[in-house]
């Protein structure tokens, strides 16, 4: 603030609070919806204040599931699948990117720039534009309905490789020289010096990639056909779109809460790493 203008300060608070209210309103209604029983949730107008059926709804959704026949899968199965997928994508991406960046920065070898550009090209090709052939590759490898099918095709990442490359380039050469004089080979240098130094970059990437993995939708939709492999976001969307006489909004909203909770918690609790990751990956 350059000068003191009480009226403008008041206006700023007012506008931001209004913005917060508008942004949080869908979340509030979802929470409220998850705390009432089914009959309340079928009668407009819906209550604006939480009810008393919260624990009951969450218990039903988590451990019994709802719907009929095959659609009746307890949600903890989907939550576990989402967690496996998110962690797998996250760890896989970081692992293969950091060693690839290490190779590109710290070694001179034929075709180095060719490989670098090959990785760079993946930046331009989101899953959405090559849906059918990617599915065909995965199907021909027999990876439909498996965790490796959910995870492996998503772990190549140009952004993560770039981020580590930028970071490695900023590490002083003197460090490498000192390590070499002390007799450290490339593997030892990587594990004992470079890896510990990359901690903050890894943490920032972890947050961004966890959210990316957890929120994947189109990919699991394509390559899973059995409920036991559905992710939570997928299960939610399927339940909303089932043609049912009386949609169980109370249970659907409880599912939505559970689908949102882990990534939202990660963002709120690791806000510093999150902002760093967001800014770094876009550079």
């Amino acid at each position, binding site marked *: 603030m350059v000068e003191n203008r009480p009226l403008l300060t008041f206006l700023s608070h007012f506008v931001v609070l209004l913005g917060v209210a508008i942004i949080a309103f869908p979340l509030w209604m979802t929470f409220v919806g998850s705390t009432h029983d089914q009959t309340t949730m079928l009668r407009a107008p819906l209550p604006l204040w939480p009810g008393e059926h919260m624990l009951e709804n969450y218990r039903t959704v988590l451990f019994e599931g709802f719907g009929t026949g095959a659609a009746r899968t307890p949600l903890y199965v989907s939550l576990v699948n989402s967690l496996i997928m998110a962690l797998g994508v996250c760890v896989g991406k970081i692992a293969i990117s950091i060693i690839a960046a290490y190779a590109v920065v710290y070694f001179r070898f034929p075709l*180095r720039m060719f490989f670098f550009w090959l990785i760079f090209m993946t930046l331009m090709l989101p899953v959405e534009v090559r849906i*059918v052939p990617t599915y065909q590759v995965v199907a021909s490898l027999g990876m439909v309905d498996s965790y490796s099918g959910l995870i492996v095709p998503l772990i190549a990442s140009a952004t993560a490789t770039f981020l580590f490359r930028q970071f490695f380039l900023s590490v002083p050469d003197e460090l490498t020289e000192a390590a070499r004089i002390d007799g450290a080979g490339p593997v030892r240098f990587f594990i004992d010096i470079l890896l510990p130094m990359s901690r903050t970059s890894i943490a920032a990437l972890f947050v961004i990639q966890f959210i990316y993995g957890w929120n994947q939708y189109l990919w699991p939709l394509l390559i899973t056909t059995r409920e036991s492999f559905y992710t939570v976001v997928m299960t939610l969307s399927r339940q909303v779109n089932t043609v049912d006489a009386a949609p169980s909004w109370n249970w659907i909203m409880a599912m939505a809460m559970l689908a949102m909770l882990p990534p939202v918690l990660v963002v709120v609790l690791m806000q510093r790493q999150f902002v760093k990751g967001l800014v770094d990956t876009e550079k």
Partner: protein
Amino acid sequence: MNKRVTFNAKLLPYVLLAPQIAVTLAFFIWPSGQALWQSVILEDAFGGNSRFVGFANFERLFANEGYWASVRITLFFSLMVASLGLGFSLLLATMADRIVRGATAYKALLVWPYAVAPAVAGVLFGFLFNPSVGIVAYFLKKGIGYEFNFVINGGQALFLVILAATWNQISYNFLFFLAGLQSVPRSLMEAAAIDGAGPLWRFWTITLPLLSPTGFFLLVVNIIYAFFGTFGVIDAMTKGGPARATEILVFKVYNDGFRGQDFGGSAAQSAILMAIVVALTVIQFRFIERRVQY
């Protein structure tokens, strides 16, 4: 940009690169090549025979009125998502930048929508505006007598997917604008204030020009997001309906390829989308280097 000090090893760098390159080749380069190849061949429904047809798939696509309708919807959709999102988040960021007390708390309250999956955002907004129980639809009807039914009204469905997609992207825009605002030199603002420039005039003549690189970067990112990142919103809320009113290009690729089994047509659409995303990425990289202002 090269290191002066490097290690000598013949095999090791290839071993280190192998996993990344293998995944890239198998799941990026090869399928993309396949998409390009499939766009110029015609396959019968059983996948038995295929023959080279040149640009016939593209000609068929361009002659299809449904494709152009989808193009128009996509353009309108992405322009709306980008402009609404940028406008609203710029307003929020400008106000939040002025706030000294409680700034961190406000930030925490504004960043979390980024963590919500697009498909979940679609479910949330579909619930709020549900024609039979949705609270917003109810108040619109009771309050001002406006009938909101996105299940049958195409225009309202398009409005709703725009709203949900914008909401999902707000925190991203907000964080970048806030970072941009905080890097505006204080001395410049103080000098302008001493010269008698009011807050609005300062915003117009100093802040806005200095923010234009951030704004342009966000514009491109938002258009890429609206084109490719919003599949979940649409699939969870409207499935491209009613009557294809919300069928954006990405959804059409999926629909034609997987539901309609029209591989040639779907591949031709993929090829066009690839060209679009490559063009957008190139613009993003070129202009970010050069900056818009000064």
